[in-house]
């Protein structure tokens, strides 16, 4: 009996031996139930133990296994062989990131960008520390010293908080490739998420990064980031809501120099 097989072309790069990446081909047994991650595991166990890739949860929550599958950024654990069989599957590391080894990319820049938007709640006390001239009305706390939040207040930002930092959106974005300084979809959506939080008073402190030319203004609304996002974060919407807000603040700054100043 001949076993059904499927071919995988994987972009390989070994920093100790190769000067540039090149494709390696593997033919493996076809199993209808296998995800691409299962296939990579099979290759690593049976064919080439040097194959290097990231993974953890195998259920689309950890965001480790982002890779480019036939040109589209996808989670390896959420991509199934049956959706491609009998065609060859071409697997590459995420675009717009330096390749560390095989399918592993260097995410340092991404982490720095996430940090740059101050992705934590800045309460009234901290906001006034940052800018003593500003009067900030504190969000009232409940009797046990935490904040209450209404479902509608949560609903305002919930979508933007679903991000799993898989970096698929960075791989999808051509502006990211053209301008590596671009803060990028996930980080800007994360900043927006905190700005929309009723407990937060830090939007002024995020403005510099968000409204920078490497912030939302590097985006041209290609929109592919939102298409590939596995969690429906719609980072393109987050970014472009900030452009609209920024343009409004800019116009206001002429009409009411003091009020519009942010």
């Amino acid at each position: 009996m001949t076993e059904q097989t499927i071919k995988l072309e994987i972009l390989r790069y070994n920093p100790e031996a190769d000067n540039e990446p090149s494709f390696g081909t593997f033919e493996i047994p076809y199993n209808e139930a296998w995800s691409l991650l299962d296939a990579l595991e099979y290759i690593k166990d049976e064919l080439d133990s040097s194959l290097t890739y990231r993974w953890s949860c195998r259920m689309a929550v950890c965001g480790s296994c982002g890779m480019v599958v036939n040109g589209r950024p996808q989670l390896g654990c959420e991509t199934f062989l049956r959706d491609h069989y009998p065609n060859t599957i071409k697997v590459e590391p995420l675009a717009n990131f330096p390749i560390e080894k095989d399918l592993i990319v260097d995410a340092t820049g991404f982490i720095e960008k996430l940090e740059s938007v101050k992705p934590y709640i800045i309460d009234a006390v901290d906001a006034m520390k940052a800018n003593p001239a500003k009067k900030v009305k504190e969000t009232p706390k409940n009797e046990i010293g935490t904040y209450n939040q209404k479902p509608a207040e949560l609903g305002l930002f919930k979508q933007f908080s679903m991000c799993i930092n898989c970096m698929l959106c960075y791989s999808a974005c051509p502006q990211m490739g053209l301008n590596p300084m671009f803060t990028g979809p996930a980080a800007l959506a994360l900043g927006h998420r905190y700005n929309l939080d009723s407990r937060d008073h830090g939007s002024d402190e995020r403005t510099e990064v968000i409204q920078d030319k490497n912030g939302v203004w590097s985006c041209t609304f290609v929109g592919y980031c939102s298409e590939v996002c596995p969690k429906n974060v719609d980072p393109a919407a987050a970014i472009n809501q900030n452009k609209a807000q920024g343009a409004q603040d800019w116009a206001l700054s002429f009409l009411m120099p003091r009020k519009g100043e942010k």
Partner: protein
Amino acid sequence: MSRRPYVRPMPANWFMSKPAYRFYMVREASCVFNLVYGLNLFAGLWQLTNGAEAWAGWLALQAHPLMIVFALATLAMTLLHTVTFVEMAPRVMPQQIRKMIPDNTVKAAMFGGIAVVTAAIIGFTAMGAM
């Protein structure tokens, strides 16, 4: 084990590499058609101020098959521009408003508005031609 990260260059023709990018380029190019079409209209106005003969010349040029093809292409591109614009518009609205009004309502209102304005323009033009 030493690190030697490899940075892949961005190909100059990146916009041809994915259907999503190609569609984006067509969407962005649609405004070029509108620009050229607008310039042509201004040229018409200019010729109108230059007397009957100049105006007739401009009108004759508009009847040229290539100009008609261009006008049709502009129409198609304008429709694409309109549809993509309306599709994207609700997502750009402030999140607070977006949570109050469903995206489809906004889109319907925008398409409705565009339909009314278009009908009005066509109506006035038809009345003027009578």
